[in-house]
């Protein structure tokens, strides 16, 4: 079974280790890149939500890309951006309803989560297991009677 990226906000402490891991994993020419994951205030006390790309089935970013630079990787299921094809029109950034396509102003690159090609650094470094990359199991409930 394929691995899934699972976010459990209840376990998140807002330590921002995932941001650091993401920035290092996506460094450009030895310089840290912009993080693709944002632990944000969930609107309640002691609740943090790591906001990252949900790799939508019918993704607005893929629809909005007029040069087909965004494509789904069949192995990981992640929508990956081909930086060589990208023309930096910012359509995906404006279109994403979750705000998870970003502009790295330092390196002038459009960025989005690519699940690190099947081995997400954020999940590896998360100390509380709020982010996990594992096969998804649904709990089977027995019907009474």
């Amino acid at each position, binding site marked *: 079974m394929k691995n899934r990226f699972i976010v459990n906000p209840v376990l998140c402490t807002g330590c921002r280790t995932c941001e650091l891991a993401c920035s290092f994993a996506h460094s450009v020419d030895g310089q840290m890149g912009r993080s693709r994951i944002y632990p*944000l205030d969930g609107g309640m006390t002691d609740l943090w939500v790591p906001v990252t790309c949900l790799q939508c089935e019918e993704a607005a970013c893929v629809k909005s890309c007029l040069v087909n630079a965004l494509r789904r990787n069949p192995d990981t299921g992640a929508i990956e951006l081909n930086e060589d*094809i990208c023309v930096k029109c910012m359509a995906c*950034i404006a279109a994403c309803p979750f705000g998870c396509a970003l502009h790295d102003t330092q390196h002038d690159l459009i960025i989005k989560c690519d699940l690190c090609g099947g081995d997400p650094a954020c999940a590896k470094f998360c100390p509380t297991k709020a982010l996990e990359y594992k096969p998804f199991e649904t709990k089977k409930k027995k019907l009474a009677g």
Partner: protein
Amino acid sequence: MVNITINGKTAQAKEGEMLLSVIRRLKIDVPALCHHEAVEPLGACRLCMVEITKTEWDGWSKFVTSCLYPVEPDLIVSTHSDQVNEIRRTIMDLYLARHPNSPEIRKLAEEYGVLKTSYEVQVDGDNCILCGICTRICDAMGFHAISLVGRGHGKTVAPPLNEAPPDCTGCLSCALNCPTNFIEFSDQDDKRTIWNKEFEMLACVKCGATTITREFAEHLSKNRDIPFEYFETCDSCHRKETSLTMGRIAAWTKEAQS
């Protein structure tokens, strides 16, 4: 798969792939000004010229633009032979005469040791090298707002009849991908001007931040079946909304479990 030799190393390429893509994949620095992966190759700048030969050619070789040359089995390519470098220097020399004020051209020429042109400098020359990246990207995106007009000395990039192009949506792709940054535009907070056409930037309904123009958003929503509401909020406000929604769901789950 096709096996070829580049600078003495064997490399594998897909059938029908252009030589330049293989060269770039091997991280060999071959200059090219008119190349962009989003569009079909044109071979306008001539800088990606390489020397090719085969063992059965009895020592003969030829020079081809690598962006337009599909790979062939057993091809032997040299990207920086003396003759190739000499060809590139000649082209840089000509570019320097035509576009003496372009910092991008000057930097590239300096890398190849061309500091001064040996031809007569065209004093009133602009920085447009007529590579057509802007027009080809505009076509690839389906706008067809600008094109190369005229021939010979008078050739320029321009919108139809030199008036504000009706098909332009102000996506800025032409200007941002121009190899010599020739296309002028102004990008203020709520207004964007390019090709003498003024655009209204679509401001976020919550914070007022702008990402794209209203016309571009309308074009995408109409032709690509994306709800227009998606464009009305900026990415940072979208993230906040997402965190609040997911936070609410997390709180419910917590309550349900306890």
